[in-house]
């Protein structure tokens, strides 16, 4: 009936990977963009003060729960846990992994007062990188993203343009000044956010990354 390949991310219809770069005459693109669709995402709620909860997470995922505000644990591209609030985290994994992660968590957190919700479908991820990535974000985001106050491993819920995003810095090269971010955006806002980024990045040159 409905074939798995018909599964469609919120930006699939834009065929981003097939687009030519923006910014004629610029020697190189200051911004690279890609959609990273279908990541497994599980909202985890629980008490960070409960050692059993912390141990359970570590046991199930092999990485610790980030209890420091606005930080992430794990490795970009691999399993990660993003801090969302004092009792709320987002476990992120590769595509089609949510059921397995939930079952591991359920087993490890049995008898604890927690909530696990599969929200993989709620958001897509736009990966933004390049020398001008930070400046583009500065056009619509009030967080201080200067390397002195924000860096890889930090994650914030905030506003970008006129929409809400979860902004996770994944990389920074001091030598080149290049930074990389994963922008988690609710799927209904994804096309707006893409348009916003395309507009803001135009002056720096924008290229698609596969």
């Amino acid at each position, binding site marked *: *009936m*409905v*074939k798995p390949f*018909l*599964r*469609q*991310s*919120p930006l699939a*219809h834009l065929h981003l990977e097939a687009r030519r770069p923006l*910014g004629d005459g610029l020697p190189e693109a200051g911004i690279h963009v890609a959609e990273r*669709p*279908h990541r497994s995402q599980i*909202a985890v*709620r629980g008490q960070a003060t409960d050692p059993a909860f912390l141990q359970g997470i570590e046991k199930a995922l092999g990485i610790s729960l980030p209890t420091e505000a606005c930080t992430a644990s794990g490795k970009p591209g691999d399993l990660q846990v993003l801090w969302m609030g004092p*009792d709320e985290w987002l476990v992120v994994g590769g595509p089609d992994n949510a059921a397995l992660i939930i079952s591991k968590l359920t087993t490890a957190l049995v008898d604890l*007062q*927690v*909530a696990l*919700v*599969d*929200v*993989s*479908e*709620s*958001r897509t991820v736009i990966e933004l990188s390049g020398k001008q990535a930070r*400046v583009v974000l*500065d*056009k*619509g*985001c*009030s967080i*201080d993203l*200067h390397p*002195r*106050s924000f860096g890889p491993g930090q994650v914030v819920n905030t506003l970008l*343009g*006129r*929409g809400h995003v979860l902004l996770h810095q994944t990389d920074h090269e001091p030598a080149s000044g290049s930074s990389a971010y994963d922008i988690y955006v*609710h*799927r*209904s*806002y*994804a*096309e*707006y*956010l893409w*348009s*916003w980024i395309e*507009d*803001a990045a*135009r*002056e720096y040159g924008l290229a698609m990354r596969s």
Partner: protein
Amino acid sequence: MSQINRLAHGGRIDRSKPLHFTFNGQAMRGYAGDTLASALIANGVRLVGRSFKYHRPRGIMAAGAEEANALVQLESGRRTLANQQATRIELYEGLSATSINCWPGPNFDLMAVNSWFHRLMPAGFYYKTFMWPAAAWKYYEHFIRRAAGLGVSPKLPDPDQYDQMNVHCDVLVVGGGAAGLAAALAAGRTGARVILADEQAELGGQLLGEQAEINGKPASHWLAAGESELAGLADVTVLKRTTVFGYYDHNFAGMLETRTAKLPNGGATTRQRLWHVRAKRVVIAAGALERPLIFSDNDRPGVMLAGAVRTYLNRYGVRAGSNAVVFTNNDDAYRTAIALKDAGVKGVCVIDTRLAPHGELPTQALQAGIAVIDNSTITGVTGKRRVQSVEVMTLNADASGVIGPARTFPCDLVATSGGWNPVIHLHSHAGGKATFDEARGLFIAADTLQASACIGAANGEFQLNDCLKDGFRAGRDAAAKAGFKKASRRKLPTAAVVDEAPARIIWALPTTKPIGQRGKHFLDLQHDVTVADVQLAAREGYRSVEHTKRYTTLGMATDQGKTGNIPGMAVLAQALGVANPGDVGTTTFRPPYTPVTLGAFAGRNVGPLADPVRMTPMHHWHELAGCKWEDVGQWKRPWYYPKDGESMADAVNRECLAARNAVALLDASTLGKIDIQGPDAAEFLNRIYTNAWSGLAIGRCRYGLMLKEDGMVFDDGVTTRLGENHFLMTTTTGNAAAVLGWLEEWLQTEWPELKVYCNSVTEAWATLTLCGPNARHLLAEFTDDMDLSADAFPFMSMQEGTVGDIPARVFRISFTGESSFEVNVPASYGLALWTQLFNAGEKYGLTPYGTEAMHVLRAEKGYIIVGQETDGTVIPQDLGMQWILSKKKDFLGRRSFARPDSARGDRKQLVGLLTGDPDMVLEEGAQIVAENRNNPPIPMIGHVTSSYYSANLGRSIALALVSSGRDRVGDTVYIPMPGKVISAEVTTPVFIDPQGERLHG
């Protein structure tokens, strides 16, 4: 026109780069580095516009942001900008500007007739004349608009782009003059993140217009070295052409950067950028503005500020006149006299209000052969479109009048100086106080609420050497307070100290007659407010400077009284008999310091980016199907799907008929969905909803109503029990975020003991609502693991299984009164399933339906829409929903039912209305009366909340809130509309299937 006033050499303009421009249609030339004002003066233009009220001829009077007269309309068509100060427009090739405030032109202005009637236009003129009778306002308004004639707004969309930037810094330095540049260097050297913003095209501030020296060399050397050092500091940002226009709480500043100084715009760059700056420390080095002396007819073209005259000479290489008188109360203006003399201007003399001025500068002037007439004032100016001469007399002992013979000095330029005022506008924006320095007649920044400091001329330091010292100290200090303490051992630059004698402050200079009876002493040149106006206001009882400002409009023009406010305040103090003008106080400065284009505030939030468009997974299918959209919050929802040639009514009727006779499909993905988990989840719902939830079986659904504590309906929706401690709540589309916020508010602030977690899953699911007698047959083709029969899958229950091989939650709930299946699948499969349903659905008559049909269908059943049948003043009882109010528990809002207002017998109640004419569709919002008579007032008893044509019933239907409506069932009520009165019968609000057979079938 040739540049008759351009000096052969000197200035910072580039004579190798000539530029062409037009002013009022006349072709002129200037140079790169000119402003429009300097180029106009170079070309001998004296008259640039007319004043606001009296339409008196006016010329350029300043060289910067304080310019009150030289407002122009810049360019025409889409890019036109109104009321631009010629002193702040950088000249560019092809510039075109015209005068404002005059029609047909500045040399012959029909409205100048106003000045003949000036006795009829005193202070408070608008209030006195035009406020009565009220009905006459429409005539007056036309006259005022035409007569006021300020610039013209563009009629077409602005083709240029504006954008915004958010930045954070340790030290924001406002102003790139001597003090500001010094502060930026000192702060930057510590490694702090520094932003230096200056409104001009070049750093240097007042230095650009002076012949000053630093370290024994021309100041330009130090400026260039400083700028180049800043450019080498990685964390220092220098923004030229950038005005810090507003300063707000917690060290937040708004800056406007002009990025394409040269119109028209080129390339991908935005024309202007609005910067939002959050600074740890702010150093305000905004300089000082010169204030004029207030004498009779001080508005004549050719009367200019002395510092501006000097700036035109030194910076732009233009002389503002060929025969000049300098009129001053202080030493500084002697610099202008000397510079004029050096530039070959004839007959330069100085009129000084002081007795025997003896400072260093007057001595130099005398040595240069400049005549000084002391203890004197200008008592009159001849020449309407151009100063021709001034009349000078000696001041009497207390300067209240003049004595002796009048001498006449022929001149075409009067350079006047009443001293300098620190620019404390930004300090004041953010709540800073000011104290009055009586000796110097100026306000100095005092207490501030912000982490900021005013330095240099902005703090009343007028010696260059002091400005440099102050700047370096303030820069170091600000950086240290922001945590950067690295010391620098560099030797600080110095400048020669010039000994200046005190000024003699006389606020309104006398003539041979009482003020107001000979000529006009202008305080506010742009709004034509005179000393006599302020004195009149005082006589009429005005005491507060804030009230006087509004009554006389002093300082309320686009220049915000940068030159006139302080003399005006002092004149008020004198008129009130207050000894110290500081006791009258100053008005509060408000942002913006200089006008900001609305485009910059909008930034890129225009056109498609004006507001996010939220899209469901099936959005693009709807678009291809040619649907019309309805905006619900930020969501786009299909409103209806017209086929070729169909009207809206045709399409909606077809969709409604399909939903009740075949099968129709609605995209309901926008409904809010909240996952609620925890051992106290049922108890939580008991408190939030009006009905009871503990007994709801797993897999069953229940409708709930949410109230605010005042008892008014807030939201409704169906909640399903997924597990013992697990519920899924749905909310209305528009209230999804508000309801989640409401739940969190109560959980976090009032009931932290409840073990419940709420998570939004709105975006995780695509919701496809199949509705109609064929819905079951169609859905059955897509699932083999769910029994869809009415017995196995009753109304208000939920099953999990697969639909089209996709994991799905299917709910048997209905908002149409028809047998319905709400299919929820993971959002990314929504479009695929939707498409597959249509591939298979043709044989069942599958029709997509939109929100309009949904609204009609639910109204046929009398189902309410929160926000349509309710408006924040409606309690459940008004809606006939007593059945949903539990009597066994407390819930939010319950106590308010006993409030006298809730218990009133005549509250509006939900009823149906059937018009006498079945084809007559009432207007939503129409008022309802009980009697059909023609002599108002007729008491209103209610209003129409929903009204449609129902194809299923073959007639119109309406829902209404009517006072004691349920008692009126069977009565006839009336809806008066323009040209007719419509009668309607009051009915119960259910028009179709009152027994619910379709629903359960």
